[in-house]
């Protein structure tokens, strides 16, 4: 992981430029220092340190966040769902039917090429949802993608809950995979285009 990529990642969480400069500057200094033999490679060490700093960047990004921000993120999560839902209404409906019919209701049914294609399309839909949600937010795109992932997961858990006795762990596993894919989509967008206001 490179420093500019890490800077984009922190900025996508809304971390202040001062925090980004402090952390990445220190990591550059530490990277230049010799480390004991047997330690991880420099690149791996740097990526691990950036990952360790992520919760703190998130905390920094959430400083000063009020109810207005939360409502705004909720609106964006809902808008992304509606926009993409309407845009893919027919295909999405067919895909949902196919998955429900072939996987959830009849788990022993042969997993045909069609179902595999539908699953791939659903995964792409989730990535697109995350990308769209992050695209709507300029200051903290990754936080909006995370909010969208959470909203989507809650929605699907509520929808699948009545069938929990039939489908078992699918109630949790499907929404969790969806949330991961939505976050990945948001990450993709956030790393392509840096957050605008806070990145100096």
């Amino acid at each position, binding site marked *: 992981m490179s420093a500019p990529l890490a800077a984009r990642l922190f900025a996508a969480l809304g971390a*202040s430029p*001062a925090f980004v400069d402090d952390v990445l500057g*220190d990591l*550059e200094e530490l990277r230049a220092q010799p480390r004991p033999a047997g330690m991880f490679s420099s690149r791996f060490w740097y990526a691990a*340190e950036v990952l*360790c700093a*992520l919760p*703190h960047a998130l905390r920094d990004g959430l*400083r000063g966040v009020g109810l207005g921000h939360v409502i705004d993120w909720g609106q964006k999560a809902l808008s992304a769902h509606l926009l993409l839902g309407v845009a893919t209404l027919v295909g999405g409906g067919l895909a949902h039917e196919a998955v429900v019919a072939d996987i959830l209701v009849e788990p022993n049914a042969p997993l045909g090429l069609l179902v595999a294609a539908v699953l791939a399309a659903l995964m792409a839909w989730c990535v697109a949802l995350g990308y769209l949600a992050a695209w709507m937010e300029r200051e903290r795109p990754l936080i909006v993608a995370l909010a969208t992932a959470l909203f989507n997961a809650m929605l699907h858990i509520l929808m699948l809950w009545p069938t929990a006795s039939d489908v078992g762990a699918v109630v949790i596993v499907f929404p969790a995979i969806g949330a991961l894919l939505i976050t990945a989509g948001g990450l993709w967008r956030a790393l392509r285009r840096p957050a605008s206001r806070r990145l100096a």
Partner: protein
Amino acid sequence: MNDALRGTFETTVLATVAALGDGASGLDIRRVVAERTGRTHAVGAIYTVLQRLEAKGFVVARVDEPRAMRGGRARRLFTVTGTGARALDDFRRRADVAWGVSSPALA
């Protein structure tokens, strides 16, 4: 009480900034905290606490010159303010009072 010292880590960081004197860098603070506590904290954790202390007015930061070894980034050097020193004294006094209370269990 938003302007009081919160938790052991916050107190340790503020005490370390005070011990290092004028213009302590984040890396120096991290190193001394690790020496004092025996635990190495993430770089981000140190700055999260330093920003909180700065917001409370317990430390002030000044920006150093940009350095090539930091990828062209400047360091921020932290110094304890009078309010921060008083908060540390207050914390120590309260801790002394707490430990000074005679307990039947310790007797």
